[in-house]
């Protein structure tokens, strides 16, 4: 059984890089861009919807120019809060503006093998093993598809991945690897089987879906159509901008926010036009390009600012935010990974992003590392403690105890100490041993994390799925495998 999910709630302080005027200006600039520059929606279904609602549509370039009033009105029908349901209702995640939940990162293509340490192509068993590990970790609230099941056919891969996660964890699953309507239909069908029918799924969406926008100012047709299928079934749907300052967005952070915001809110507005009241969320992972190589950096001061600013925007639109944090270009769980993942996650947490993506990937979301996964969870635990702030009340001022101890002496033998010591943070992975101990072993945090991951995989038993249900899912997958790729 998985334990309680740890979240950040009621933080004692917040970080807000944008002023109210800043937000208003970004909002107005965004509406201007959507109305006058336009956003590409290369999907016949999407274009029809826009046309039916009075937007100006250029069918030749698939560009939509929508008046500000249409966007604002559509966004108003989005529910400000909703719950991501889990197979185990104890693990439901309320996206109510007062919780920060962490997920695993997604779609890596390689894995640092937990036994050999070697880098290798990812496969379905990795998806299952990572899901099982995540199931045991209290810091993890939900799953993304962590790596790709490259040993399964391309046209059904995303569905095998889903079932592997359900089979190994009772927590909520958010998929980011479905990019066609065809796959989305199948995923909804599978989710209905797990949830107990279409109505049950709508009431308790155990699956949500995340799509990417295609910066600058465009959407992907397949992703849009997949999102519409999911929204119709009542699954929460999000759109993530990955605008990169300098390459797919202006080189100024404010300009990058505008471009990304235009992509995300236009996509969310479309979902609302199609299905008013459908649960939707804002998602973002903006970055700044590496000016020397053009590389996608995913980790640097601008990213950290985007992490907090995006939440201010999502709050402005009254929708939950899923924020890309824990993003690092590091090749190993090292200093760089520690700096990037701590600061990005701190900024996103201190602004109360609802969902954080995600733990475990290195090298620009390409290589899975169990060590990094556990170290990232520890980063979250540290930040969680920081945001609990400093309680100031009679008990915490400890006047009686201070008087009892007096000058000099110590607090080790005080009842007050014993009563409060467990609220101090407990270290799991920092190396605080004597130097000699270290020198004899020459190991460190990644080694401690690896040992813990091995222990989890050797012992953790997730809340299993009904055998008949597993068999049904398997049958449906086999049927889909045999279909001609669309």
């Amino acid at each position, binding site marked *: 059984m998985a334990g309680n999910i740890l979240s950040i709630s009621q933080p004692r302080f917040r970080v807000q890089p944008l002023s109210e005027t800043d937000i208003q200006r970004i909002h107005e600039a965004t509406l201007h861009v959507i109305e006058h520059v336009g956003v590409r929606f290369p999907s016949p279904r999407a274009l029809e919807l826009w046309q039916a609602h009075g937007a100006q549509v250029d069918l030749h370039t698939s560009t939509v120019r929508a008046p500000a009033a249409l966007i604002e009105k559509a966004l108003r029908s989005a529910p400000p809060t909703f719950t991501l349901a889990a197979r185990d209702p104890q693990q439901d995640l309320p996206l109510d503006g007062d919780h920060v939940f962490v997920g695993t990162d997604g779609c890596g*293509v390689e894995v640092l093998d937990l036994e050999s340490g070697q880098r290798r192509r990812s496969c379905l068993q990795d998806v299952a093993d990572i899901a099982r590990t995540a199931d045991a970790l209290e810091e993890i609230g939900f799953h993304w598809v962590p790596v*790709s099941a490259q040993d399964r056919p391309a046209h059904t891969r995303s569905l095998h991945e889903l079932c592997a996660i359900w089979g190994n964890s009772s927590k909520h699953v958010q998929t980011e690897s479905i990019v066609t309507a065809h796959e989305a239909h199948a995923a909804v069908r599978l989710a209905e089987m797990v949830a107990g029918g279409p109505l049950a799924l709508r009431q308790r969406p155990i699956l949500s879906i995340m799509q990417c926008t*295609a910066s600058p100012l465009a959407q992907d047709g397949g992703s849009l159509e997949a999102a519409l299928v999911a929204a119709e079934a009542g699954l929460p749907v999000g759109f993530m901008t990955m605008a990169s300052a*300098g*390459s797919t967005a202006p080189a100024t952070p404010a300009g990058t926010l505008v471009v990304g915001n235009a992509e995300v809110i236009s996509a969310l507005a479309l979902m609302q036009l199609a299905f008013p009241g459908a649960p939707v969320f804002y998602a973002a992972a903006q970055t700044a390009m590496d*000016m020397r190589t*053009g590389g996608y950096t995913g980790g640097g001061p601008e990213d950290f600012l985007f992490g907090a600013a995006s939440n201010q925007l999502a709050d402005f639109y009254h929708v939950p935010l899923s924020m890309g944090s824990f993003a690092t270009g590091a090749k190993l769980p090292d200093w760089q990974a520690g700096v990037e993942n701590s600061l990005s996650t701190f900024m996103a947490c201190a602004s109360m992003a609802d969902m954080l993506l995600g733990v475990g990937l290195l090298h620009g979301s*390409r290589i899975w590392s169990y060590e990094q996964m556990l170290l990232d969870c520890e980063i979250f635990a540290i930040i969680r403690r920081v945001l609990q702030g400093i309680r100031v009340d009679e008990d915490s001022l400890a006047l009686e105890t201070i008087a009892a101890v007096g000058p000099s002496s110590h607090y080790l033998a005080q009842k007050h100490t014993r009563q409060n010591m467990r609220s101090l943070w407990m270290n799991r992975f920092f190396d605080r041993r004597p130097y000699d101990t270290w020198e004899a072993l020459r190991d460190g945090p990644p080694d401690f994390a690896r040992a813990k991951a091995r222990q989890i995989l050797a012992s953790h038993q997730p809340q299993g799925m009904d055998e008949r249900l597993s068999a049904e899912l398997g049958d449906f997958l086999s049927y889909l495998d045999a279909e001609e790729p669309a």
Partner: protein
Amino acid sequence: MSTDIFQAMAQSVIDGEKEEAARLARQAVTDGIDPLVAIDQGFVAGMRYVGEQYTLGEMFLPDLVLAAEAMKAAIAELEPEMARRGTARQVLGTVVIGTVEGDIHDIGKTLVGTLLSANGFKVYDLGVNVPLQTFLDKALEVNADIIGLSTLLTTTMINQRKFVQALEAAGVRSRFKVLVGGAPVTRSWAAEIGADGYSEDASGAVQAAIQLMQGG
């Protein structure tokens, strides 16, 4: 006077001023300067400088892209005159490049294309989500030396293999060199599918393309 105009040409490329580069190219034609000389002693000199500074880390990618755009604008102005004189610019080779069908990742492919053209290749960039047949049609049309397939998705990598197979099926495999790349693509994948070249990044792609032209 000539040296002045050549210097101005180089400078227009260094500054990434497309309009200025085009204006100088038109002036060269009016002044009766041989377009090949204008390119070599003027624009290419600027491009070479930018390339060096970029390698040294002094200039950034946008400098390089703007320089390449200025260079392209100048050459476009000079092309009719070259045709009139019956001369042609020496290019290292002709490349058709794009991101394969099913994949819309744009930046890496665009970078590779830009660096190839900055380094003397003639590049036809077909964009993203490109059907395999379109690569082949274009390559035949422009008599390409190299066909470059980019992909960032594990689900679309398979299209690189399909393309090599399609070339074989069409009986034209030996006419083109196939260069592959993209985030999940590795040297061993390139070897497995029988591609001719691979690189992990854009400067490596230029080296790989040069090698392919030398028959390597």
